């Protein structure tokens, strides 16, 4: 089936070439980091995780978001999703690939990455995260590939694939739960030390993942003859509505607990994020933008006429995606480190090189999505023809 | 099999690329470098293990040393003859083998290995 990715229109090849060019430039940036060390980034002794780990966290959510197609179809027999579950599975593949690349980019000694396996340490959450992410990647590759193959050959998929699919559903919840456990089990970090973190991560994932899927559906519809179906997209919009409301609700629960109890070690991070500390206000405009995007998206989403209108869908999805991205991809990690363990405020801003490497990883993810979606849509075009 | 030509050409190019290092280096093999002992090493006469064994297995031994020192906190090595040595690359090995460049690096370069020991461990005798 791979050969389907090797023939395409001029625009297809231009797009691929563009992505490759971005990846190549970013890779040269990475070589600089490889040579010098992580000192090329804006990270510091106080803010020891930054943009890479934040992107990783956000993208685990995007990967888990694919389950919002798989679950209704396989557990509730919701037919409208049947034709596009493959898009959710392939998006998950690309997102996990990006996650793993971000982890690698963040390691001080990437050559020793396999130590996590050689010295397997079950009480370290990072060990479990490596395990569930790689497992999820494998599951989605196998499931996506086998389903597509069966569709192309017009035969029923092998029976065992069904069990893998059932396994992949709780697994999707698992990857983001374990990712939240990385942070929420650390005793000295008040911003993360909350049991609502995993549910909050999942809620934002089930908003961000499907929003990105809908955006991809629009692109698929534009550049191929395969139509993902209006009904499926409308249902996804409904899922996004619930998920986004849950996400904001969980955030409000956190805000209540923190500000009503007024324990400084928990309160000061949120205060810093939304109001800054003295002249340290780097994240304040971002956080309010995120809140504005999420809240106004909720207003638009709860009105069925707007939510179901294909003209507005892409805009709402962009709002949701950007809003949740800022919340997780910018505020969540840096916010946990400011103030630091000594309760001093040391801010973090990513360097241009750090951003370039980040863009490179995203370009790699887009390349994977492009190739996998090209294969999937072309097979669907042929089957439909 | 209408692509027969293309496939054969592809395989040929692949094979050529993969074997590049072999035919590129053919006939340029150099003799293994001679080990040069520092005066301190000559004076000591014996190493902690027989010479040929050290040549072959010093890396495993050092791996054992580092685990013993760092993880077990056992820092003294008892040789076969009962003699005791501080398990330390910088402070024991290089104490005798003061000529790191001739004794260590030459052979490592020849074998194209790049042990990362030296990223942290220093040669105290180095001027």
């Amino acid at each position, binding site marked *: 089936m791979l050969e389907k990715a090797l023939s395409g229109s001029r625009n297809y090849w231009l797009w691929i070439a563009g992505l490759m060019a971005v990846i190549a430039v970013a890779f040269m940036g990475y070589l600089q980091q490889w040579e*010098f*060390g*992580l*000192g090329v980034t*804006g*990270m*510091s*002794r106080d803010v*020891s995780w930054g943009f890479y780990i934040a992107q990783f966290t956000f993208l685990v959510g995007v990967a888990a978001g694919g389950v919002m197609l798989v679950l209704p179809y396989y557990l509730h027999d919701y037919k409208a999703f049947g034709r596009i579950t493959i898009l959710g599975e392939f998006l998950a593949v690309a997102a996990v690939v990006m996650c793993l690349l971000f982890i690698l980019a963040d390691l*001080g*000694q990437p050559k*020793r990455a396999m*130590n*996590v396996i*050689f*010295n397997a*340490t079950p009480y*370290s*959450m*990072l*060990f479990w995260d490596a395990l569930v992410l790689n497992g999820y990647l494998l599951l989605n590759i196998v499931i996506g590939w086998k389903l597509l193959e069966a569709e192309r050959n017009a035969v029923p998929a092998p029976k065992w694939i069904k069990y893998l699919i059932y396994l992949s559903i709780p697994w999707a919840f698992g990857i983001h739960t374990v990712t939240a456990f990385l*942070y929420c089990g*650390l*005793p*000295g*970090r008040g911003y993360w030390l909350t049991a609502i973190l995993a549910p909050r991560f999942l809620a934002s994932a089930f908003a961000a993942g499907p929003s990105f899927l809908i955006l991809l559906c629009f692109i698929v519809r534009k550049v191929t003859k395969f139509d993902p179906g209006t009904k499926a997209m409308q249902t996804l919009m409904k899922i996004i509505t619930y998920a986004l409301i849950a996400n904001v609700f969980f955030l409000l629960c956190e805000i209540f607990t923190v500000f009503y109890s007024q324990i400084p*070690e928990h309160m000061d991070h949120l205060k810093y994020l939304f109001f800054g500390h003295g002249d340290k206000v780097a994240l304040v405009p971002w956080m309010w933008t995120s809140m504005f995007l999420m809240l106004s998206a909720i207003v638009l989403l709860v009105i069925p006429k707007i939510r179901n209108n294909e003209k507005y869908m892409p805009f709402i999805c962009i709002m949701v995606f950007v809003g949740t991205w800022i919340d997780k991809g910018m505020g969540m990690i840096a916010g*946990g*480190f400011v103030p630091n*363990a*000594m*309760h*001093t405020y040391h801010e973090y801003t990513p360097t241009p090189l750090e951003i370039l490497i980040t863009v490179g990883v995203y370009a790699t993810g887009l390349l994977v999505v492009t190739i996998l979606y090209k294969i999937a849509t072309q097979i669907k075009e042929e089957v439909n023809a | 099999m209408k692509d027969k030509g293309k496939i054969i050409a592809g395989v040929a190019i692949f094979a050529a690329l993969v074997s590049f290092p072999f035919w590129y280096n053919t006939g340029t093999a150099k003799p293994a470098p001679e080990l040069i002992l520092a005066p301190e090493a000559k004076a000591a006469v014996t190493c902690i293990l*027989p010479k040929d*064994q050290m040549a072959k*297995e010093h890396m*495993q*031994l050092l791996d*054992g*040393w*580092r*685990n*013993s020192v*760092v*993880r*077990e*906190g*056992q*820092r*003294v*090595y*008892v*040789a*076969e003859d009962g003699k005791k040595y501080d398990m330390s690359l*910088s402070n024991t090995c290089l104490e005798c083998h003061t000529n790191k460049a001739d004794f260590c690096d030459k052979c490592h370069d020849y074998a194209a290995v790049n042990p*990362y020991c030296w*990223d*942290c461990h*220093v040669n*105290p005798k180095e001027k």
Partner: protein
Amino acid sequence: MKESRRSFLKIAGVSALGVTAASNAHAIGEYFIPSEQAIKDQKVSTADRWGMVIDTRKLTHELNEKIAKSCHLNHNVPTLENKNHEIKWIWEEHYEHAFTQQPNEFQAEETAHAPILTLCNHCDNPPCVQACPTKATFQREDGIVLMDFHRCIGCRFCMAACPYGSRSFNFRDPRDAMEDGKPTNPEFPTRTKGVVEKCNFCAERLAVGKDPYCVEASEGALVFGDLSDENSEIRKVLKENYTIRRKASLGTGPSVFYIV
């Protein structure tokens, strides 16, 4: 040949698979020297749980500088210009930053800005050890929380887990910051870029029966000893003085005590 192979096996020990079953802590393919060939120095200082008491009444800015310098020069801790990349094992903090859980707006000016020394607490229940995915950070039988720099992958999970800010990361090659790339103490290794580091309670000095550098330089302000030994000097000091620990309510069980 056969003979030397056999004797090597005896010396280098079994590969980790066998050892793993016994100690459950070692990686595949690593070598261990069998116990009859790897021993401790006769002069070794031993304890069940090493600890430290810091008498903050005796600390001054100058003394703190002297102590930190003694540690950092002997452990080849580089002085880096860029504050982001800073590495420190033992350093001075003002009281209000060292003891964030004792906020007191009416604190005597002198106390609030009192120069306190902070270092790794060598916790009894260390969150950094729990977080480390490779056991590069581990707790020894004598309570010391130690780092195996050979194994660290530089994920910095331990830095996020440590509630005391005791850990530093090598954001660049530390030798770049040393004069001619030479360490100040050639008998002690430097670190490589991309690994985390912190105070080791001078494990290398305890191994030969010496006190840590900081204690030696402290002019009596720092007392070091075995917390589990009722008759030790440190226990005597703890019995006679009111002491506090940093963020003890987190349950980490710090082994560094402060007389304030």
